[in-house]
């Protein structure tokens, strides 16, 4: 009887160990929180965070995080009942600001993914970390040249190596696969 109990207990422990996710829920939440904090932290020219970060893990592929934001929050001209006109100058200025902030956003996303590679300890080194940002544009904006989605993908091990080697600039950018849609 005792031996039977031990056998059942052993099988149960094996089953529970196999169903436990490789990437823990808490580690995903931690990365989400870091993304939200980072994107809200810019004081001078913050992003307009329209959708908080959401992360998930796909076994055998990697961890994926998505977020939605507008590149501009402050002093973005908007249509109100008493301000129904937007000049061409304002629209052009907005486009210029957004184009400039695209580079800042890419840098931020790379930094966040470098941090995530350390936070996601359970993630196998050969799997990927993907970060997808949905970019919001108003219908009256000149969004020519501005993507609606920005997706960065990198292998965890390469991210850890880049972090250890303190890579910057073009060397760091070469670690990532970038896709703009």
């Amino acid at each position: 009887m005792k031996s039977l109990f031990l056998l059942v207990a052993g099988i149960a422990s094996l089953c529970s160990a196999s169903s436990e996710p490789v990437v823990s829920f808490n580690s995903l939440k931690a990365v989400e929180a870091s993304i939200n904090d980072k994107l809200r932290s810019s004081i001078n020219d913050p992003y307009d965070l329209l959708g908080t970060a959401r992360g998930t893990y796909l076994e055998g592929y990697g961890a994926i995080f998505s977020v939605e934001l507008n590149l501009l929050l402050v002093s973005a001209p908007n249509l109100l009942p008493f301000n129904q006109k937007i000049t061409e100058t304002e629209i052009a200025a907005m486009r210029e600001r957004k184009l400039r902030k695209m580079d800042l956003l890419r840098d931020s996303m790379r930094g966040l993914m470098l941090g995530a590679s350390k936070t996601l300890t359970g993630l196998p080194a050969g799997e990927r970390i993907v970060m997808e940002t949905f970019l919001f544009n108003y219908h009256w904006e000149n969004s020519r040249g501005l993507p609606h989605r920005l997706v960065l993908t990198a292998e965890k091990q390469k991210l850890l190596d880049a972090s250890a080697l303190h890579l910057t600039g073009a060397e760091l950018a070469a670690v990532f696969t970038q896709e703009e849609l």
Partner: protein
Amino acid sequence: MTTCDRAEALRDYAFDELAAGERREMERHLTACTDCAAELDQLRLTTAALRILPDREIPQRIAFVSDKIFEPSPAARFFRSGFFSSAWAGFASAAIMAVALLFTAFHRPAEIRTVVQTASAADVNRRIDAAVATAVADAVRQVRAEDAKTAKETLAAAELRYEREHRFLLASMEQNMEVLQKRLGTFTSLASLDVPQIASQNGAGQ
């Protein structure tokens, strides 16, 4: 009339018909002979007078009355005949007068009545007023039609512009609402994330 024996040579000299040698000899003679000099002056005066007279052309044909071409035509011979003599003419005139008297005595033409209609001043004024009123009415109608057309076009353009602006504003408002909802969701989500952290911080503090 000169009595000099060279009178004939003098006439030839006057008409420039002498040879050069005879001419010089005549000129010497004229200085000595006063009769010939006087005769020469007379001849020259006559020559000058003749040159003043107009030239007359020589007739190309001379005809006589007896030529056949001057014979009267048959009609002329009829009118010159005794039928149109003064007696016959008087008789014919009297006959025509008698016929005319008889005709007027038995035939009276219908009386010709000429009716001239003259319009009165009031009638003329009425017509002018009517014409002016018609012209003014036409002009007013035309101006009103043009005004109506212009107003219609302006109104259509304004409606189109208003519709466009309305759609634009509506789309903007919808998008603004969407942004506000997303911001609200973000705020709620972040607040729910912050509460456990605060609670855990408070728990750790205790």
